């Protein structure tokens, strides 16, 4: 029979060394008796044989962190369980991947409890400031963990609170961080820590961040069990908060709405009259935009046409030629639009033409810039500009060509072919939907092209009729 007594500091390492030696010497689990230092546990019949020297053994990689964690568990049987599992593991290393195995499931459960305990320790330790002589501020805390988690958790505090001295006392062990050095010492009974003024502020915060209309006590206690409450300064407020919550919520509901304070009307009025932007400001802003290029986008192209136009025609975005000219609708699409407008009896020069998105978006392929459809964020980005143009012109009708314009103005892109030719009421005023000239240009055969072109002409004629009325 071998007897191994493990120290309270550095337990995990000590267990690992002992287990290595025992395993290398082929000592079976039933021949080992594990004990903790100072635990007062004795087996009268056990022969006090020291563990054999460490030898080389191999274990699956995933066993190491599992053993590390389980060693910090409070259960006295943990070392024996770990060693028994390690013994089985020698014959079948695949056992580590078997989540259905009962003893592995048990160890995993213990690992989880230790992890949770360590995590709660990082959460619920509360430092209080104590007087210090040196240049560093000093803090101390008292904490009662369920498992032996101070040692594995202390480095977290050392990295976090590197510029102050601190100590954490627990019944079994204490950690001290002074001048950048971390050391462990004996445990202590609860020290008498002075009141900290910050605790009152923290209590105020805790009371006020709570919303009495959504009381969920169970959700709180499952994450912050009552066993921790006695060392949490904020917990003293909990009973009162729970007791008064319902009454406070009812009081809010019962109170009649009050009259707004006098300044409210004044502030809102000023806010609502400030928004309008002039053409000059808009042009200046556009110029400003043009000073900053954006990768994958062309320059900023504003709309063009009379500022008192009755009709605004909105396309998708500038194309390659528009980008070079800095003017909207001058490329193939623009030319097609001109011809179609003429055929429909609409004077295109009397309309304000612009695009939903103001920059040409492209992808470079060799020397060519290939058109990319604007995405939602491009659209949202450009909406402000189109809104200002519409606001300044206040047209009778807006003609939206293609999906992007439709999405910007009506909020919906889908179903243009069905929706074209109809007027939809929007926050911008009436919007007549139609096809984009580039759609016509893309049609595969002459028949389809003529058909689509006839649709566009019909819509342009409809627009002419509506603005004339």
């Amino acid at each position, binding site marked *: 029979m071998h007897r191994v007594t493990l120290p309270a500091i550095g337990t995990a390492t000590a267990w690992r060394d002992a287990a290595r030696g025992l395993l290398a010497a082929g000592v079976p689990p039933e021949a080992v008796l594990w004990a903790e230092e100072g635990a007062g546990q004795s087996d009268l019949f056990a022969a006090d044989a020291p563990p054999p020297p460490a030898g080389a053994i191999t274990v699956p990689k995933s066993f190491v962190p599992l053993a590390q964690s389980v060693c910090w568990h409070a259960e006295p049987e943990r070392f024996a369980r770990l060693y028994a599992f390690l013994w089985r593991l020698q014959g079948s290393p695949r056992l580590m*991947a078997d989540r259905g195995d009962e003893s592995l499931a048990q160890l995993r459960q213990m690992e989880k409890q230790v992890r949770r305990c360590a995590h709660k320790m990082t959460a619920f330790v509360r430092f209080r400031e104590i007087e210090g002589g040196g240049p560093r501020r000093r*803090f101390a805390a008292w904490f009662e963990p369920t498992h032996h988690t101070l040692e594995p958790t202390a480095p977290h*505090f050392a990295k976090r609170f590197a510029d102050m001295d601190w100590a954490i006392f627990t019944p079994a062990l204490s950690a001290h961080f002074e001048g950048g050095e971390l050391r462990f010492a004996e445990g202590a009974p609860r020290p008498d820590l002075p009141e900290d003024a910050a605790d009152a502020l923290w209590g105020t915060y805790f009371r*006020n*961040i709570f919303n009495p209309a959504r009381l*969920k006590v169970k*959700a709180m206690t499952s994450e912050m069990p009552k066993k921790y409450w006695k060392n949490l300064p904020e917990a003293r407020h909990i009973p009162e908060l729970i007791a008064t919550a319902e009454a406070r919520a009812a009081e*809010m509901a019962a109170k009649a709405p009050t009259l707004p304070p006098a300044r409210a009307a004044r502030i809102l009025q000023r806010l609502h009259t400030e928004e309008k932007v002039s053409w000059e400001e808009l042009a200046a802003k556009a110029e400003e935009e043009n000073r900053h290029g954006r990768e994958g986008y062309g320059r900023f192209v504003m709309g063009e046409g009379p500022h008192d136009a009755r009709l605004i025609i909105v396309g998708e975005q500038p194309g390659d030629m528009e980008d070079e000219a800095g003017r909207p609708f001058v490329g193939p699409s623009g030319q097609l639009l001109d011809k179609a407008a003429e055929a429909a009896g609409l004077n295109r020069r009397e309309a304000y033409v612009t695009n939903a998105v103001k920059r040409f978006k492209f992808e470079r392929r060799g020397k060519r810039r290939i058109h990319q459809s604007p995405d939602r964020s491009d659209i949202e*980005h450009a909406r402000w500009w189109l809104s200002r143009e519409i606001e300044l012109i206040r047209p009778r009708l807006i003609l939206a060509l293609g999906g992007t314009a439709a999405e910007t103005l009506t909020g919906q892109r889908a179903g243009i072919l069905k929706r074209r030719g109809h007027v939809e009421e929007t926050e911008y005023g009436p919007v007549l939907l139609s096809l984009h000239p580039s759609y016509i240009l893309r049609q595969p055969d002459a028949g389809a092209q003529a058909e689509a072109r006839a649709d566009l002409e019909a819509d342009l004629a409809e627009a002419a009729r509506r603005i004339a009325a």
Partner: protein
Amino acid sequence: MTLQDKLEILSDAARYDASCASSSTTRRDSSKGGIGSTTGSGICHAYAPDGRCISLLKILMTNFCIYDCAYCVNRVSSNVPRARFTPEEVVTLTLEFYRRNYIEGLFLSSGIIQSPDKTMSDMVQIARTLREREGFKGYIHLKTIPDAAPELIEEAGRHADRLSINVEMPTDQSVRQYAPEKKPETIRGAMGDVKRHERAAKDRTHKGRKAPAFAPAGQSTQMIIGADAANDATILGQSSRLYGDYRLRRVYYSAFSPIPDSTAKLPLIKPPLIREHRLYQADWLMRFYGFEVGEITAAQADGNLDLTIDPKLAWALANRHRFPVDVQRAEKELLLRVPGFGTKSVDRILTTRRHRRLRYEDLRRMGANLKSAKAFITLTDWSPGGLTDAANLRARFAPPAEQLSLF
């Protein structure tokens, strides 16, 4: 007014923001100077009796506001007491709370004072002071003011771990109705800006250096539910667009809850907490379980989620022809759709079944909820028999109807 008084008013005003996450940012610590650190999954330092985690010092810089959003306790037309922190006060509170291990960092929001730019630049100043003067390595979450200048948003992103801009309501129409000074398009424009900066920060400079980090924990948003008439299908549709278009880390749903000094425009109701819970569950299904919005909301005709059972179970009950699933052979996608199986238990099933046949008891040890799952699975030693198609299957999960009082 003392610091205590201000803290009372300005934390009270901040409690309606649901987010308190301090996770998924870059790992930092103060071993090379300064104070503070971040961990991978964040730490909840306390829980309030509303069940919500308190991870960050969540306060408003000021609750003075020139906007008049009907659902908000701080709107200009409300008579709540007002206060304003100086930037130094916020810095001191954050650090003193941090040193006592009360918090992971700061979540700073604000009412709009004077102008959006002025408000935002004050907030950025606080973040800058914490980072540059105090060497603070903890977590900072800044609420972004949508109308603020792009340079300010850029600087905010350099100091903060997370930026958020609230979309406020599920539909544009509701935003216009209840928050007349806010523009849905400006809000989305600002979210687009943040996304662009985030992406730019991933590129390297022409010299191959890393670009300065920009909000490493990404951006999130929040919408209030139950104040307008939008159904769950609309809400989830909006979230799934937001996740896709702006790469949001999280969309938070906040059940509209009564506020002190409320306006006559909104109904004072008990906050729809169960609905909020179901929406979070559905949100999870979309992000981690491969569900589409349409599938989740198709179970009920009105486009709302079933309040009595969770959305995954509701989907399974409505699609029983796809069950039972053979746990030994089924693909991962299908296993993820079994009620009672989480992502973790599915991973455990996958690793273990490579080596041997699974039994019913194994699943219990792997953490599966068999009460929910047993009707939908088959195993070597388990078959649900007629249970999968039983007419009363739903009733086994739904809580018994409450007996109403006769008098």
